[in-house]
C-alpha cells in the first residue's frame, strides 16, 4: 500500500495507550484512556446485557451517571458516546419505574385537554430545571413540559425530536413527571391530530388502487432479463 507519510493524523493518545483509573459502580479499574464507558465495562471484565443497545447514541439503553475527578457535579451521559478520563466515577442508570399512560392515539377527541387526564402531574412542574440538566441530548426539557401544558404541541414535538427516551429526566423530577413520556404523547398527538394531511399521498394511494400503473407493470414484468436491464439503463 503506497501512502505518503504526510497524510497521517497524529493521535498521541492512541499510540501512548495511556491507562487511566476509573471507578465503575464504586470499584476501581484501570482502563485505556479515551475509550467509551461501555468499552470500559467490557475491558474491566463485565458482561453487559442491560445497559447496551444500539451503541450509536440513539436507543437510550446505556444511560449513565458520571462525575469527573474532584468535581462534585454528577452528570448524565449515554455510555456508548462518552469517553472515560482519569478519576472518573461512573454508574449505569437502573431501569426506573415511571408510569406511562396508555391511550388510543387516533380516538382522542381533544388531545390538548386529554393531556391533563393522561398525565395529571404534568402541570405540577415546580421549575427546578433538574430535568433539563439531566438530559444528555441537551433538550430544554423543563421548557418542553411547560409548552406541553400550555398547548404548544408543535414546539414540543420539534424540541423533543432529539429525545432518545433514556428517561434520565424522570428520576430527578420532584413532581413525579416523566417528561419524556409526556413529550412522546404530545409529539404523537401533534402528528396524528394537528398536522396537515398530505394531499399528494392520498392521490398516490388512489392511483395505485385504481390501477394507474398496471400497464407499466405489465410491460416491465413480461420483459426478459436483457430487456429489463436495457430498460433500467434508460432510467437515470
Amino acid at each position: 500500500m503506497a501512502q505518503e507519510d504526510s497524510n497521517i493524523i497524529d493521535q498521541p493518545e492512541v499510540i501512548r495507550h495511556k491507562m487511566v483509573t476509573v471507578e465503575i459502580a464504586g470499584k476501581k479499574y484501570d482502563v485505556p484512556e479515551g475509550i467509551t464507558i461501555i468499552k470500559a465495562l467490557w475491558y474491566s471484565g463485565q458482561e453487559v446485557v442491560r445497559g447496551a443497545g444500539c451503541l450509536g447514541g440513539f436507543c437510550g439503553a446505556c444511560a449513565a451517571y458520571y462525575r469527573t475527578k474532584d468535581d462534585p457535579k454528577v452528570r448524565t451521559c449515554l455510555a456508548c458516546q462518552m469517553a472515560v478520563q482519569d478519576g472518573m466515577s461512573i454508574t449505569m442508570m437502573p431501569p426506573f419505574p415511571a408510569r406511562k399512560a396508555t391511550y388510543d392515539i387516533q380516538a382522542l377527541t381533544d388531545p390538548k385537554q386529554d393531556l391533563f387526564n393522561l398525565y395529571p402531574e404534568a402541570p405540577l412542574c415546580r421549575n427546578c430545571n433538574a430535568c433539563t440538566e439531566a438530559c444528555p441530548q441537551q433538550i430544554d426539557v423543563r421548557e418542553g413540559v411547560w409548552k406541553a401544558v400550555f398547548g404548544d404541541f408543535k414546539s414540543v414535538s420539534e424540541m423533543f425530536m432529539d429525545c432518545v427516551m433514556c428517561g434520565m429526566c424522570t428520576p430527578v423530577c420532584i413532581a413525579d413527571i416523566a417528561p419524556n413520556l409526556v413529550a412522546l404523547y404530545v409529539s404523537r398527538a401533534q402528528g396524528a391530530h394537528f398536522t396537515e394531511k398530505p394531499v399528494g399521498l392520498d392521490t398516490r394511494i388512489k392511483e395505485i388502487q385504481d390501477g394507474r400503473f398496471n400497464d407499466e407493470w405489465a410491460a416491465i414484468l413480461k420483459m426478459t432479463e436483457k430487456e429489463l436491464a436495457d430498460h433500467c439503463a434508460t432510467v437515470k
Partner: protein
Amino acid sequence: MDIHALQQIVHHTRDARRQQALPKFSPADRDQLIHKYHPDYRERAYRPIRFGINEGDKTVVELAALLEGDSPIADEFDLTADYTTDVLVVGGGGAGCAAALHAHAAGAKVILATKLRLGDSNSVMAQGGMQISVAPEDSPVTHFVDTLKGGHMQNDHQLLKVMVEEGPSIAKWLLSLGVLFDRDGDGNLHVKKGGGSSKPRLLTCSDYTGLEIMRVLKDEVLNQKIQLLEFCAAIELTSDEKGACTGAIFKDLDNQRHVVVAAKSVILATGGIGRLHIQGFPTSNHYGATGDGLCLAYRMGAKLTQIDTFQYHPSGAVYPEQLIGALVTEGIRSEGGHLVNAKGERFVNELDTRDVVSSSIIRECEEGRGIRTMSGRIGVWLDTPLLDAEHGPGTVEKHFPAMMLQFERFGIDISKDPVLIYPTLHYQNGGVKIDANSETNVTNLFVAGEASGGLHGRNRLMGNSLLDLMVFGKRSGMTAAVRAAAMPQGKVTVGHLRGFRAEAKKHGSTNGIVSPMILPPYTRKES
C-alpha cells in the same frame, strides 16, 4: 500530522470542486470496480456451507461456522410451555413492532420477545430516511426500477413489487400513529434524493427518521398492551411431527432460565449480522446483531438466499477513535457533500449506489490516496462544511442535528471541519428466503426485515430498509394472525434437531460451536 493541518486541503479545494460535475460510472466500469475492491469479492473470506438445505452455497466463514453450530437444546429437553400464543414475534426492532401491531390489530394474541429491550435495534439508528414514491413525478414503477438497478438486477421481483406498491399506505399508517415526517410548505411530504435513486423519494424526520418511527411504534406496542418478553434470547425453534414451526425456546438473560413459548406461528424479526465483524470490519450495527434468526431458521430447514452478499456503508467514522464504525448518514451526500481523497480530489459520484461508493473509497485507500490515523485506520474526507457553503450557514446544524451532537461530544464541529470516513459493515443483503407474505419454506415460520432475503438483491438501496420492515412486518403479522384463527396449536417438539445433528455428524462437524451467539464476546477475559 495534526488533523487540522490535513483538513486544509479540503477547505482549499472546495470552491474548485463545487464547479465540477462527476458522471456516474458506466455499467462496465462499475462492475469492474466492484469486482476488484468490494469485500464481497474477497474469495478467501468465503467458504461453502457443509450441510443443511444450503449445502455447498458460499457464505462468509464467520456465518458458516454459526449456521453449522449445534443447538444449546438437548433432544430430551422439557418442552412444557410457559406461554401459549397465536403469534410469537421474535425481535423488537422495526419489523418486530410492525408485525406485532398488525397481528394484534387483526385479532390475534401476540407475544413479542426480544433479547434486549423493546426497540433496541438497528431501526432506531436509521438516519437517511424511508423510500416511498409519493412525489407526482415519481411512481412505484420507478422505485422498482431504481431498486433493481441498485440490487444488480438480482432482486426478487414479486417481493419488490409488493414493497414499492404498499409504500404509500405504510406512510399513511405511520402518519395516523403520529409520526412526524418532514413536510413541504404546502403540507405534502417532503422528499429527498437518495443514493442510487433517480427521483427524490426519501421521507425523513430530520436525521432521526428511524428514532422517530421507533419511538412511536414502541409506544403503540405498549398502548396496545402486547405481551412482552424482554431480555429473552431465542435459542431454538420448535416443530411438530411434520416439521411446521410451533414455537420457540428462549433463555431469559436476567436469570438464565429457559422459557418455552408455544405458538401457532412464529415471526423471526431478528435483524442482521454486523456484530460478527465479518472480514474484520467495524460495524454500524446494534449490540445484538449476531444473526441469531439465521441459525434458528437454518436448523429448521428454512432456505437461505444471497447470504454471500453484505452491504458496507460508505461512510463509517474513522476518527475519533470513540466513533469508529459509527455511521455518518448518507444524507450528507444526498445534500451534496463531496468525498475527497488526500490530494483534495473527488473520485466518485457521491450519489452512486453504496457498493460503488464503498468500493471506490477502498480503491483510493489501497492506492495510497487515503488519510491514515495513528491507530492504523485509513479513510477519506467527507466534506461536511460544503453543505453550509452551498445552502447557507446553519444547514448542517438544522438538517443533521443528531450527527452534529455526536461529533460535538468529542470537540469536533462538522459544520466547520470535514470528517474522516471508511466503509463500515452495515447490512446483510440476503437472508432467509420468503414469499410475498413473508413466509419461509417451513410452514408457519415467517421472517421479516433484515433477517429475510431476496428483496434487496446484491445491494440494498438506501432508504429501502425502513420500508421493508414496515411492509413485510405488516404482511407477516396479518398472514400469521388470519391463519392462527383457523388452526389448532401444533405439537411442541425439537424433532428437527435429530435430523440436523445426524447431518452434522455425517459431515464431521465437531467444531464445538454452539449457536446462536446472542451477544458478541466483547468482555475481556483475564489477560
